[in-house]
């Protein structure tokens, strides 16, 4: 028995190895919620993959943590007055992880492998505006004439149509530049990024080491581990246990963390929309008055404050307020059930109507939002049947136009008003393209194209604002809110800033905090 008691007394110290002590050389620890698809930029379709590609590769351009466009492997670029031809000049002296130099040929080859008709990436769209890229991707052409090498240090990209935001497209992970000698397996692609891939235990962790020769200055920490942790509460526990360096605060924990760890928190409006797409081509929802009535009938500020923990900014349009063109001052659909009833009566629906609202079963927070919306709409005679399916089935139904309403979120690919208008409201992007509301308006379409042609930023911003206003009045969505991200940074590190866009954080300025 004494021996057993002795064992008990040393047990905590035996087990303490679990919570490793912070040392200056201990790796930084980040996380993804599921295993990335690949480390090959050509297969970068989702956020985890995009973030991992961002660590190990660079594109010609890139975003900083605040979503501003910056030069990367191209240190400067010029545009012709029509916005059709871009010339990107390569930064001198940059080398890939295999020591080979970054050349214009590597740029061309990187783009061609993404556009390769045999690629199963499926996300070549940032490169498709280049002249001839579509035909090449379809397998009907053997070259992309829009890519032109100008000597040893510049690449000219000629587009099919003017596209003012094209340099932002090139900051997407899929447009990363990879070494020509890259291998065939996904982990064998070689980049120029601040971190070098070391190992990958699937569903467990990815390990990176600092690239000492990084052109923008090597990362301050020696190594970075990215753990795969699916459960949000466990991630929060990992941070509290000192084994994870940053974490998104789980919704249910918002109040607790605000009081317990106030000085760890970072908060930033996200480039993201939470909305309910109303299928503009289906039944009663074809009538704009019905869609407007839905916007009047739902008490959005109250649902935001209660169900969503106040973690958002009420939307009066689709463009987030931190982007040029975003507007939170325009006249909103204020909560007005009487007005909603009038509009419904005018549309001939005084007797009421039944609609299906599709939600993703695994998203509990949005599920509760759907219930709150259901209860508000019931007050004005709109019966909502909530259809809960797994995310994949919900998206499939919404994309095929088989859902009356679908509660969704939209994440920015590139920080620009265009990303919150063109895919969401152009009649060329119905369904899988992003227009889940099947909103179709010739004037909106032509304004969207005009904005894409407009080089002047101020003029483009005016156009974005006008388009957003026009669409808002037509109410293709039940507009909800722009989420505000709430993350915690462990006191064990310094220098990390919450990025507004997933590929805006490279972890180069982050290091272990020196113990007090």
């Amino acid at each position, binding site marked *: 028995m004494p021996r057993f008691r002795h064992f008990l007394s040393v047990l905590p110290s035996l087990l303490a190895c*679990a919570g490793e002590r912070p040392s200056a050389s201990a790796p930084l620890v980040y996380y993804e919620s599921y295993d990335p698809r690949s480390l090959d930029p050509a297969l970068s379709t989702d956020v985890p993959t995009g973030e991992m590609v961002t660590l190990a590769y660079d594109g010609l351009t890139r975003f900083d943590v605040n979503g501003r466009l910056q030069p990367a492997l191209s240190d400067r670029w010029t545009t012709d007055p029509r916005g059709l031809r871009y010339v990107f000049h390569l930064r001198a002296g940059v080398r890939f992880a295999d020591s080979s130099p970054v050349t214009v040929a590597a740029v061309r080859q990187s783009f061609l492998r993404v556009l390769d008709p045999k690629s*199963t990436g499926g996300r070549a*769209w940032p490169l498709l505006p280049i002249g001839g890229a579509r035909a090449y991707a379809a397998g009907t052409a053997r070259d992309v004439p829009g890519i032109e090498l100008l000597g040893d240090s510049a690449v000219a990209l000629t587009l099919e149509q003017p596209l003012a935001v094209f340099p932002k497209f090139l900051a997407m992970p899929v447009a990363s530049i990879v070494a020509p000698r890259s291998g065939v397996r996904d982990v064998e692609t070689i980049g120029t990024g601040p971190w070098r891939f070391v190992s990958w235990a699937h569903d467990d962790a990815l390990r990176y080491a600092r690239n000492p020769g990084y052109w923008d200055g090597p990362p301050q920490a020696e190594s970075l581990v990215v753990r795969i942790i699916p459960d949000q509460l*466990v991630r929060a*526990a990992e941070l509290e246990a000192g084994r994870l360096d940053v974490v998104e605060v789980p919704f249910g924990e918002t109040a607790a963390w605000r009081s317990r760890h106030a000085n760890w928190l970072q908060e930033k409006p996200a480039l993201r929309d939470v909305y309910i797409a109303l299928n503009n081509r289906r039944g009663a929802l074809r009538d704009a008055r019905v869609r407007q009535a839905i916007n009047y009938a739902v008490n959005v500020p109250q649902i935001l404050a209660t169900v969503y923990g106040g973690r958002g900014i009420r939307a009066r349009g689709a463009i987030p307020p931190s982007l040029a063109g975003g507007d939170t001052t325009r006249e909103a659909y204020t909560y007005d059930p009487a007005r909603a009833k009038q509009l419904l009566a005018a549309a001939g629906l005084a007797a009421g109507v039944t609609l299906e609202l599709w939600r993703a079963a695994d998203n509990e927070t949005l599920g509760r939002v759907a219930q709150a919306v259901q209860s508000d709409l019931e007050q004005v005679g709109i019966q909502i049947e909530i259809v809960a399916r*797994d995310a994949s089935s919900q998206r499939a139904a919404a994309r095929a136009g088989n859902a009356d309403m679908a509660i969704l979120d939209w994440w920015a690919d590139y920080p620009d008003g265009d990303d919150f208008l063109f895919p969401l409201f152009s009649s060329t992007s119905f369904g899988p393209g992003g227009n889940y509301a099947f909103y179709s308006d010739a004037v909106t379409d032509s304004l969207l194209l005009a904005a894409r042609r407009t080089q002047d930023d101020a003029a483009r911003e005016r156009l974005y604002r006008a388009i957003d206003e026009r669409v808002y009045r037509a109410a293709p969505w039940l507009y909800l809110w722009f989420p505000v991200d709430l993350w915690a940074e462990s006191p064990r590190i310094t220098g990390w800033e919450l990025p507004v866009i997933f590929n805006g954080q490279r972890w180069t300025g982050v290091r272990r905090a020196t113990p007090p």
Partner: protein
Amino acid sequence: MTARLGRRLLLVVPTLCGVLVAAFLLLNVAPGDPVQAMVGERADSATIARLRAELHLDDPLPVRFGRYVLGLLHGDLGRSYITGRPIAQDLAERFPKTAQLALAAMSFAATVGIALGVVAAVRPGGWADRLARLTAYLGVSFPVYWVGLLLVLLFAVTLRWLPPSGSGGLVYLILPAATLGMRSVAVLARMTRGAMREALASDFIRTARAKGASERVVVLRHALRNALIPVITVLALDTGSYLTGSLLTESIFAWPGLGRYVLTAIEKRDLPAVQGAILFMSVLFVLVNLFADLLYAKADPRIAYD
């Protein structure tokens, strides 16, 4: 014995064929499209059409099934639609982790469960019996997810004795194994207690006592051995289900096993990955049950395999 084994093995073939057909049909009539998961948001219809053709998704179902079976006959489980990696390699990477967790959970459950059951049976109504009953109620009625999170909070966040999640040394096994084995502890304790009570009341126990055997010998050698048959059945069934991956436990503890692999594959509609995993799990399950059958004979020689 050998003949029986051979017959049982032969029966495995139609079972697996059934699993193969059912899994293929179910997956292919379920809504959701793997190509949509591959391309993510904002895809154009040309890309979607090209990828569907590339993956032969537009071929008639029988043709696709035939192609899949042909691959299987060549020992090829195919490649994941999403990652492009060979599925056999994915499964081979995950299975050892799942096996490790299953073994730890079963060892925990067998040791604690059987011990509790024996102690409870020896003195019915005593403190051990009451503890065993409480454990059984709690173990069966508490949801795994909740218990897992509670253990994380207590041992990882508050006491900081154990890591909350992840994989590595033995310390990483403790919480997931306890969480996963919890239900089995409960069931085993009740089963063992019942079987032991029955055994202890039998004639042969009276005979053993009459010939002067010590209580330890009576309980452990005579009663427990006879009580073990139903216990082995439960153990085998649970081992079979643990070996095929445990979705919740693996997700809570970020354990890189089969359960999470299948979950991700289902979410992404990664058809060949789900099919491959189901097939693999079925083979495992069948083999474990076969093994349990053979164990019966070891525990009780009266079960004769003609």
